[in-house]
């Protein structure tokens, strides 16, 4: 791509020729206010807040719709620009209800930020404000019409990314508002992205509604584990170490600015039905007792390790290393959630492979197809000495194949974070609590082969430990009790 040189606030920059001025500014750490502009959506140019001055132009231009040109001199400050922004802010707030105390967006609202930066300190509008409708757009999205500034980000999103085209603008002038097309419902699996991209509090999440004020949350970066896309996410927690919401983090190489509703909403398993303490034959035990019991069982001949594709590369590698020294005859198999067809949208694809780390499993354990590996094990008829089952799949349901494998195992050592089906199934001799992906660090390889690391975003809610630490402790116990082989 051809590069052009231009000046932004007196600073020389070089950017590709097909960029707009606002993109050039943002990429060079110059802030230009914007509502309707979104880096991953088409240009609308209807909010008019992104006014910048360009030398040679008679009046400020909108930066989002202005392509860069060679020798252009852009100024993002100055009297003209400030006046223009101030005027735009005043118009945008004319019919705004100013219900910030009740609005979920306040604290991360662009209207608040820009009003503070560029707006007037008082309103001059004394007439009655237009009151618009409130509506439920879909299962996860609610609409407050009065707060809307009709930037049409959501309309463009449904057309360009999710592709359903459910939303449109009705009425005209100061009465215009967003509405569903007749017979349609905003129920596609990407609907909650509309909440994120809404710069004001018009579209809000009904799942997060009135849950917390955003300034009481603290955010940590993470990677979504719910499918093999590996969306970059931001986890927001409250002061009580509870996950309140998950929103996407922009990463153009993986998920752009989007994330599916399923990934955003599946965090209940972190706080529910957790395996709090180690168990030996169904009874609570100390970590030491449980580890010694596990060590005794794992050295049985004819043992098998069954590792799910929800485990991190580090967990797989450390278990593999441990088994090769502890009981080299142990064979390692993999399994995972069933793989369905991908859900493809015009601007986003949700993977049908509902495991985060199938590619990592192939790299670390050499198991190309997790479920084929499970089928191969299920086809065998020999008795299994000890089955080391490393699950970590949330809300896991036992399949018929796994059932047959469990039935012919003399003992099962389970590593899992939940008290789910597997623990209830019966013959679990030792259960060691692990942690969810939110509580431990590690790395996943997504389906494009990109290895993404993540850190713990929260304090562990149980006495569980990451698999790597469990393995390290087991090694320590082996040294302590002596080599019995």
């Amino acid at each position, binding site marked *: 791509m051809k590069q052009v040189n231009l000046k932004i606030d007196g600073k020389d920059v070089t950017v590709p020729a097909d960029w707009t001025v606002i993109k050039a500014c943002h990429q060079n750490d110059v802030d230009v206010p914007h509502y309707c502009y979104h880096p991953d959506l088409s240009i609308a140019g209807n909010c008019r807040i992104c006014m910048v001055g360009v030398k040679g132009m008679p009046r400020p231009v909108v930066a989002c719709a202005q392509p860069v040109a060679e020798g252009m001199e852009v100024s993002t400050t100055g009297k003209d620009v400030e006046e223009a922004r101030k005027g735009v802010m005043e118009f945008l707030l004319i019919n705004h209800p100013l*219900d*910030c*105390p*009740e*609005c979920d967006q*306040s604290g991360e609202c662009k209207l608040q930020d820009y009003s503070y930066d560029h707006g007037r300190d008082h309103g001059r509008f004394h007439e009655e404000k237009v009151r618009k409708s409130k509506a439920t757009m879909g299962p996860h999205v609610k609409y*407050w019409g009065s707060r809307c500034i009709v930037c049409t980000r959501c309309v463009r999103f449904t057309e360009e990314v999710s592709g359903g085209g459910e939303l449109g603008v009705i009425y005209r002038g100061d009465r215009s508002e967003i509405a569903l097309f007749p017979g349609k419902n905003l129920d596609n699996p990407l609907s909650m992205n509309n909440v994120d991209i809404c710069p004001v509090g018009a579209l809000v999440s009904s799942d997060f*509604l*009135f*849950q917390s*004020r955003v*300034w*009481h949350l603290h955010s940590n970066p993470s990677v979504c584990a719910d499918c093999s896309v590996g969306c970059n996410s931001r986890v927001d927690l409250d002061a009580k170490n509870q996950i309140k919401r998950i929103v996407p983090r922009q990463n153009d190489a993986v998920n752009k600015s989007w994330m599916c509703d399923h990934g955003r909403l599946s965090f209940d398993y972190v706080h529910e039905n957790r395996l709090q303490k180690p168990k030996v034959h169904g009874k609570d035990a100390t970590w030491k007792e449980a580890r010694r019991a596990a060590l005794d069982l794992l050295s049985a001949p004819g043992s098998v390790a069954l590792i799910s594709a929800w485990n991190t590369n580090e967990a797989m590698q450390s278990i593999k290393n441990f088994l090769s020294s502890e009981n080299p005859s142990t064979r390692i198999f993999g399994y995972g959630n069933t793989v369905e067809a991908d859900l493809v949208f015009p601007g986003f694809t949700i993977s049908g492979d509902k495991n985060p780390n199938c590619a990592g499993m192939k790299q670390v354990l050499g198991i190309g197809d997790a479920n084929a590996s499970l089928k191969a094990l299920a086809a065998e008829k020999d008795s299994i000495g000890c089955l080391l089952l490393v699950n970590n799949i949330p809300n896991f349901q036992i399949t018929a194949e796994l059932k047959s494998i469990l039935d012919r195992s003399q003992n099962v050592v389970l590593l899992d974070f939940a008290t789910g089906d597997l623990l209830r199934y019966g013959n679990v001799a030792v259960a060691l609590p692990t942690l969810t992906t939110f509580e431990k660090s590690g790395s996943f390889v997504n389906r494009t082969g990109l290895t993404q690391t993540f850190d713990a975003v929260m304090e562990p809610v149980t006495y569980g430990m990451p698999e790597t630490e469990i393995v390290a402790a087991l090694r320590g116990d082996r040294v302590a009790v002596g080599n019995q082989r």
Partner: protein
Amino acid sequence: MSVDMKKMDVHPPRPEMRPSRLSWITRIYIPMILKGMLISLREFMRKPVTIQYPEQKPKVSERFRGEHRLTKDAEGHMKCVACYMCATACPAHCINIEAQAAPPEWDGRDKIPSVFEIDMLKCIYCGYCVEACPKEAIEMTNKVPKVYQTRQEFIYGLNKLLNN
């Protein structure tokens, strides 16, 4: 540069080690002790200022910052919209709010608190919550904070604050 160790050891005398500049009449103590005892005797003669608290209540200023109250609007609904501004401003973190959707018949209201608790043991009665409130929904009465037997009783809930 050579350092003269002898000189280094010489410090100016610390203030309290300097010879006293008190007059001799002060330094023999006795007159000063008598003076002090006369002062305490004078206080002894005066009336005590103690208030017998539970029976007698102190007279407080109009602007005294006592227990909180949640106010109501003309229709008798609480004015609070659970915006958490008071909880955010509170330096003692004594306010605990949980929000819920307002009943649909309350016109123009989206959100009300389902839980509004002030821990009177933690509260320092600074009045920041009142200043922070955008709806004038919380104010401080001039009721002197009460005393209870259990910690739980010090946590004032929504009903108690609305009727305080």
